[in-house]
């Protein structure tokens, strides 16, 4: 990642900065703003009861959430859950049936705010009759970036997504994965303050997926807010600060990964020689149950494992195995999709 190449052309964007210059601050001080809008101005994304109906189909129901600036936010859900609909509403490509939303402090569809937004669509297609560098140049022009920055922006985007040696090739000759890389490059042009990535690795091989994770981490380090739409849990788990899980148009859980997974930890032990009093003593670490020769203590985090072992040993037990259990996001995801709505946000 050529960080040093970034120093010319684009305005500096210090890591961790939340003072996103330009569009939002202008609106924050507008006395005519509603309370919601004022609250929204300080966040990258704020939605209130956002809903979208296509005929009889509820594509999105009452989406209310806030994404702080500089956060990598994962929007998780199975195919058809309403993820892409949400992004299209947020980017002004479709109109909500009801509700309100603000992106970078501006109401939906605000044209000038789009200068600060990058977007990789799920259905990514670029003009096949253009060369890769020409596609990027076109988007520099449409994004109305200063002309003297174009060359640098294009080179940076190409090198970031690993297409520097294909700059002069027609997009029509690109594989799907290369087109997705190009789309990612397009989304990165102009140092956007917020980037929407809709299934950004759907066409990529493992190397490409790792590259995308690196790019997202790099964006986060620069203070860019990333809205990551995905059904790939490992991807979300690897890079996101917080996630919302959406299904059938409704958010069924939101929170940090720790929030989502905190109550799902436990420890299981294979022990012998532990009497009822010993088991009773271990129950102070969590709910104890016994099955298949394993003693399970639900809710006990990895930090209390030494205490559990010490307690068991002090009670005369012989410990053969100890396995801290940390439920994966995938387990939690599947559980949520199969159950009722759960509110996990702190």
């Amino acid at each position, binding site marked *: 990642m050529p960080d040093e190449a970034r120093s010319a052309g684009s305005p500096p964007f210090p890591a961790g900065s939340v003072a996103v210059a330009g569009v939002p601050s202008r609106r924050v001080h507008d006395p005519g703003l509603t309370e919601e809008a004022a609250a929204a101005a300080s966040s990258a994304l704020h939605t209130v009861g956002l809903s979208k109906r296509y005929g009889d189909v509820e594509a999105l129901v009452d989406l209310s959430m806030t994404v702080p600036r500089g956060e990598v936010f994962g929007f998780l859900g199975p195919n058809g859950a309403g993820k892409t609909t949400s992004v299209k509403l947020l980017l002004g*490509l479709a109109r909500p049936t009801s509700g309100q939303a603000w992106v970078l402090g501006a109401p939906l569809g605000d044209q000038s705010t789009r200068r600060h937004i990058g977007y990789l669509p799920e259905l990514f297609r670029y003009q096949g009759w*253009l060369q890769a560098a020409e596609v990027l140049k076109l988007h520099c*022009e449409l994004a109305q970036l200063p002309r003297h920055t174009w060359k640098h922006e294009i080179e940076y985007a190409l090198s970031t997504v690993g297409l520097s040696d294909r700059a002069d090739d027609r997009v029509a000759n690109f594989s799907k994965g290369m087109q997705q890389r190009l789309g990612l490059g397009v989304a990165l042009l102009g140092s956007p303050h917020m980037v929407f990535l809709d299934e950004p690795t759907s066409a990529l091989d493992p190397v490409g997926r790792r590259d995308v994770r690196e790019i997202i981490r790099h964006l986060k380090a620069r203070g860019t807010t990333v809205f990551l739409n995905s059904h790939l849990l490992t991807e979300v788990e690897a890079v996101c600060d917080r996630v919302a899980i959406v299904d059938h148009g409704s958010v069924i859980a939101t929170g940090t990964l720790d929030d989502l997974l905190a109550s799902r930890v436990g420890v299981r032990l294979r022990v012998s020689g532990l009497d009822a009093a010993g088991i009773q003593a271990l129950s102070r670490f969590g709910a104890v149950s016994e099955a298949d020769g394993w003693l399970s203590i639900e809710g006990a985090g990895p930090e209390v494992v030494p205490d559990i072992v010490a307690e068991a040993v002090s009670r005369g037990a012989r410990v053969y195995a100890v396995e801290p259990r940390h439920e994966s996001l995938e387990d939690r995801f599947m559980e949520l999709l199969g159950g009722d709505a759960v509110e996990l946000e702190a």
Partner: protein
Amino acid sequence: MDTALLGNGLLGLQPRVIWAIMRLTLRETSRRKLLLALLGLTIVVIGVTLFGIYKLTTITGPNEQPLTPLELKTVVSQILILIMFMFSFVLALSAVFVAAPMISGDVESGISLAILTRPLSRADVVLGKWLGLVALVSTYIAGTVAIELIGVKLITDYQPPSPVFTILFLIAETVVLMTLALLISTRLSGMTGGVIALGAYGISWLGGIAGAVGAAFQNSTITHIGTTTQLLLPTDGLWRGAVYSMEPAAIITIARAAGAAGRAASANPFLELNPPPLTYLLWCAGWLVAMLALTVYSFHRREI
């Protein structure tokens, strides 16, 4: 829901963006080899027609004598109108083929997703594409017709009375149909839009004939049908302007002198005795503006 949701109002036009989209449209026609195909086809058509006209200069009349200059000019003028009619038909087909998928194709393929999320309005996109197509059509028609007319002039020394108006009317006719196709393209697929636009073109053509027949036989109902179609889609009305600009004064005089028979003869789309009234031309200009505004509005309201 507020109409400003999809952009900053209907007409937050940005000339730089319009210029970029216009160049992109022209580049697309070039890269997709449309220009090459048109160039090849044009060379063939011009070559064949000029050769045919050259052969006319060598034919002889019943008394084994070559045609007199007046006879030759009369024949050439009518053949030129036929050639231009064929040319206008090809132009209509081409304009529809190019314009009908111009917006719908981008929406269906997903290309528009990345473009419409840039800081631009949909009016910028519509106008950029429209101007690109107008530039293409105008340049092509002006170039091709000029070469054809210069060739005819060199071979036969005949020149239609108002060649500039011929070019302008042909451009206007094509732009009108292209604009209709672009409007449909904001809502329907290229295939469906193409069929509708060509169907409307055919109806306008038939309506023009019906109107002339009605006028010849003084039947107001049929005349109104013709007038209505020429107002709803001015392609035929503009084509008749092109015909009038190519018609030698002698033929117009003869046809007018023939009275009702002459008026009946003008029912065919190759004879027009009167120039289009200024009010009709103003109507056509207003029609174009209204259609463009409708195209912008339709695309503006479309959810992607």
